[in-house]
């Protein structure tokens, strides 16, 4: 619908075309309806309209409909409240200043809705770029209220200034918190989630009450675990409601994690770590709660300050680590795969960041965690095996893998890990662990892992051989990634991917190239890459095509095409390749001479193949001609069979 924008006349509803009048009339009727679904529908339509169009006509629409919207607020309870919030935010996000009375409506809505319903609106208002300060204060107050109540209720004695001076005891919030368990849980979860979302935003309210919020999160977690013993009536009622409540625990742990981005007084930070440890230790914690506790712990650990003038961990963190590792050890033995897996993910992340810190290395090697991690390579659950592969890979990169004597690993130990991972790669029945092994191998090769670097050729040959036989195309694709890293190490980095960069030939010096080609032939990289070029799974073929194109660019000056191209070796290889392309992949390529490889690279139409592969594999089926054929053929044939796919 186009409004009378051209003339800049005031938007008169009577100027609208008849169909628009009819639509608006229907929306008006629906907004006045007593049936909630009808109100919801009308609000949704308006949300979409205001979300997508801005013009004089939407202003006119607002003028006409806002009284009806405001009338919804007079009802108790407010019908379709979350659709109403969606609409108001949609209008506020578009061009708030052009909608008359919008800020007043928003303030009015904030005060009319119940604390739980008002939460999403308050968050939406605080996210707005441009909004009156009074409204922002009101909105922030709504988000803080529940936490302020908890803090007040749990206080043993009148303590330091709370979250909201003078407003802590808002009766509506206290009523909601105490009315029933589900209302209390709902309100607290919303408040925690909304504040967590607000925390990292640049437009979050300033000053941000970091310390009281930390205090509130810790208090809520203590109420949930039963370790807090509030003396007030409200406090003990809250304690009874929250104890053991997984939903609040998850929300509070997420929030606590988000708060790690700010700082807090040392005393509070100590409390944070102690409550996190309490959750990690507690047998009552569910697997999801434990996962969140691990995530929050990681965030706090990584944000903990370094000791000035020293690159090692600060004493508090060190102390905490000493307590944490035995807990992690226990969790790695959990009967629940979800817990073992979350534990391993935590360990991987921690090692990735702190593998070089002496304090961490010391604490880790003194524990049984590395040994347990290695044992989990044989876990019955494939997800856990995959995480164990990633974790041991990471530990080994930092020389932290398990040793019986507790010393950092010597070469022999390392070799056995390599053998074990190769064994997993060639025998594990599931794709995840095999994929994880290929990723670890690629990382090891890229980072120049000491033991890989010792005999990189043999390492790459072994890995590629195992990957080439794999049924999982992602393992084969990862194999090509490894091959590419190897190529780059031999021949230098790939060129810039910037489309505007001037493309200069980046060929390798002939001596280096000849040597590299010899190596590549020895590790049978070409057999792997050419086979992958005709792989039935498109991403593998695409990756292989890219790899061979890169190689061809590097090899440009090497030898003349004629001399190698005429050799009988090349002819037979070309024939084999053609058979492969036709789908017969039984026959091996055999040993290739570097010269033949270069000739082959020139003779295969790699660019053409790349263009074909760039189209999705159903492009033929999706073509108009194919659709027409479908339609012609479908007449009356398939009608009855439609449900049989499920």
């Amino acid at each position, binding site marked *: 619908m186009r409004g009378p924008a051209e003339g800049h006349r005031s938007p008169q509803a009577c100027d609208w075309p008849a169909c628009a009048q009819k639509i608006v009339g229907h929306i008006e009727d629906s907004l006045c309806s007593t049936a909630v679904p009808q109100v919801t529908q009308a609000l949704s339509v308006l949300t979409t309209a205001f979300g997508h169009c801005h013009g004089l006509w939407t202003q006119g629409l607002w003028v006409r409909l806002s009284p009806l919207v405001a009338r919804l607020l007079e009802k108790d309870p407010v019908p379709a409240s979350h659709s109403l919030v969606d609409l108001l935010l949609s209008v506020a996000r578009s061009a708030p200043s052009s909608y008359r009375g919008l800020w007043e409506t928003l303030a009015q809505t904030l005060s009319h809705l119940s604390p739980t319903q008002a939460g999403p609106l308050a968050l939406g208002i605080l996210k707005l770029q441009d909004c009156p300060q009074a409204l922002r204060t009101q909105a922030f107050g709504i988000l803080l209220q529940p936490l302020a109540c908890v803090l007040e209720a749990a206080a043993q004695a009148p303590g330091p200034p709370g979250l909201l001076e003078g407003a802590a005891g808002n009766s509506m919030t206290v009523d909601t918190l105490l009315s029933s368990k589900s209302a209390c849980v709902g309100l607290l979860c919303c408040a925690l*989630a909304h504040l967590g979302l607000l925390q990292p935003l640049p437009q979050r309210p300033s000053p941000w009450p970091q310390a009281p919020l930390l205090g509130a999160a810790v208090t809520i977690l203590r109420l949930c675990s039963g370790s807090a013993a509030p003396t007030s009536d409200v406090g003990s009622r809250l304690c009874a409601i929250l104890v053991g409540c997984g939903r609040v625990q998850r929300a509070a742990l997420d929030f606590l994690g988000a708060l790690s981005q700010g700082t807090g007084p040392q005393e509070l930070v100590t409390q944070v770590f102690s409550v996190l440890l309490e959750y990690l230790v507690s047998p009552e914690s569910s697997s999801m709660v434990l996962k969140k506790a691990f995530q929050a712990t990681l965030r706090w650990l990584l944000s903990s300050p370094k000791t000035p003038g020293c690159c090692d961990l600060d004493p508090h963190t060190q102390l905490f680590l000493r307590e944490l590792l035995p807990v992690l050890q226990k969790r790695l033995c959990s009967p629940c795969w979800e817990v073992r897996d979350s534990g391993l993910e935590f360990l991987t992340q921690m090692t990735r960041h702190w593998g070089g810190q002496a304090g961490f290395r010391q604490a880790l090697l003194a524990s049984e965690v590395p040994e347990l991690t290695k044992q989990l390579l044989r876990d019955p659950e494939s997800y856990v095996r995959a995480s164990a592969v990633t974790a041991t890979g990471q530990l080994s990169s930092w020389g932290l893998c398990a040793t019986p004597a507790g010393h950092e690993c010597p070469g022999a130990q390392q070799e056995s890990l390599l053998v074990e991972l190769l064994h997993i790669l060639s025998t594990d029945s599931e794709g995840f662990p095999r994929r994880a092994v290929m990723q670890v191998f690629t990382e090891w090769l890229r980072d120049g892992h000491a033991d890989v670097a010792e005999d990189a050729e043999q390492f790459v040959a072994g890995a590629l051989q195992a990957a080439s036989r794999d049924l999982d195309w992602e393992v084969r694709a990862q194999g090509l990634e490894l091959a590419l890293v190897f190529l780059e190490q031999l021949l230098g980095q790939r060129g810039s991917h910037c489309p505007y960069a001037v493309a200069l030939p980046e060929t390798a010096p002939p001596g280096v190239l000849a040597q590299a080609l010899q190596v590549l032939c020895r590790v049978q990289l070409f057999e792997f890459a050419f086979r992958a070029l005709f792989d039935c799974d498109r991403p593998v073929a695409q990756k292989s095509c890219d790899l061979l194109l890169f190689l061809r660019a590097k090899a440009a000056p090497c030898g003349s095409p004629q001399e190698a191209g005429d050799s009988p070796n090349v002819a037979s290889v070309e024939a084999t390749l053609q058979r492969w392309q036709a789908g017969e992949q039984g026959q091996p390529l055999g040993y290739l001479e570097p010269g033949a490889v270069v000739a082959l690279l020139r003779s295969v139409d790699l660019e053409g193949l790349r263009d*074909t592969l760039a189209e999705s594999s159903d492009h033929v089926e999706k073509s108009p001609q194919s659709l027409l054929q479908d339609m012609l*053929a479908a007449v009356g044939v398939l009608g009855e069979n439609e449900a049989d796919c499920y």
Partner: protein
Amino acid sequence: MPEIRVTPLGAGQDVGRSCILVSIAGKNVMLDCGMHMGFSDDRRFPDFSYITRSGRLTDFLDCVIISHFHLDHCGALPYFSEMVGYDGPIYMTQPTQAICPILLEDYRKIAVDKKGEANFFTSQMIKDCMKKVVAVHLHQTVQVDDELEIKAYYAGHVLGAAMFQIKVGSESVVYTGDYNMTPDRHLGAAWIDKCRPNLLITESTYATTIRDSKRCRERDFLKKVHETVERGGKVLIPVFALGRAQELCILLETFWERMDLKAPIYFSTGLTEKANHYYKLFIPWTNQKIRKTFVQRNMFEFKHVKAFDRAFADSPGPMVVFATPGMLHAGQSLQIFRKWAGNEKNMVIMPGYCVQGTVGHKILSGQRKLEMEGRQVLEVKMQVEYMSFSAHADAKGIMQLVGQAEPENVLLVHGEAKKMEFLKQKIEQEFRVSCYMPANGETVTLPTSPSIPVGISLGLLKRELAQGLLPDSKKPRLLHGTLIMKDSNFRLVSSEQALKELGLAEHQLRFTCRVHLHDTRKEQETAVRVYSHLKSVLKDHCVQHLPDGSVTVESILIQAAAHSEDPGTKVLLVSWTYQDEELGSYLTSLLKKGLPQAS
């Protein structure tokens, strides 16, 4: 007014993308979270923005329930939980929990492989999503929170498929998911108890069909396979790794054994072993026959079915190959099809529906020249057969389930509108219940009568028992007491206890009533007549004639007075306390009938 609201986000007058929002007594539950096989754009997943646009899903939903592992019921789950963002619990049965991630992974690989989709959910997301799953056992009541509870029932259809009862207080909804009311080769029939829910949400795939015997279809299938193999041809059966594949494997295995056939049967991809592993692991979920024979021989340990290697496709001689995926749209099944399509001795059997645009769909609709990648034209000379083995309840089965559960209302999903309309009328006629069939995004609202639990004080019960009447569940009995509401609880207590608990003093309340009697005698004499009449009628009560001339029956006081205007009429003033109200009204009506004539 309490109500149940149901909004399908998918599967409303449609098959695919099952996702139904149910709001019951203030709790919001999402039933299934599927994808649509027919779409590859935004429409393949349910429109979750319908739930909320600016809020978080976790705050709006109390839980998600997945009925079974088919992708049209769980395919959008990682997208929903990890990409849109849902942190709450997801409930499903143990076999579904085990098999669901395999199929999701399979789906992801095909989507990424085939379409090169970059913004698709990852393996890590599938894993994170599965960590939110809570497994439920059959017939176990799971308390989601203090008010909401769910319970799973056996649904047949596929391994681990379940129907779910969702209950808050006395209000309940049953969601069937997909189910099968007749047992097949590896699964049993669906069953539910007479739970009389307020609403039964049932699938209606075969709303108008009465399906022929499955035996006929099986015989037909075996005949076709046998004929092809006998003439030296190869049979390709494109399947999805789990479900129908296992059923067909059992079928061929038994047939091969009986006929002593030698042609090899292969099952492609590593998924087979894993799939069969799960069938073995969850043997209690299969049918009685398989469970019984399990001790002697595990039906899922196939003697004739072997793992397929890519090189086998080029081997000469007859063979049968089960290959994934089922619609010939990518991967190994398509690769084998391309090799075998040119030979008229070979056969491809499609045991399920194929989405438009796939090679499977093209050959089923009769196309014989297919344009493949790189401008190649593939001529299809092999025979193409379609066979339906899907395990849904037919019209008879759906009616049977409605009869079994005895719901107050029925809502149809997972079917085509035209067929639903027919079934809706049939259900309304036969069971005299309302039947609904909302489209996607349309909300059905059902008012329910609230049931408020009331506790009865022990004192009150003891008093009743003291009267010698034992409680009998089948005979309702009237019980007097005072209803008090304290701490959001209702209790029925004796009036004395109520007064005590509430700290109130007792007030005496008397009702009075005038009864006019035609009697010319003096007031005293009228009183005597009243006394003797009542004495003779009310033998169990204490009737007294007091010295002041008034008559009492328990707390009821009767006084006779002369009428001010009519000397031939006497006025009886009857007064009683509210405790004796019943007796008081009885006496009044008795006296209104007049006194017996003096003999």
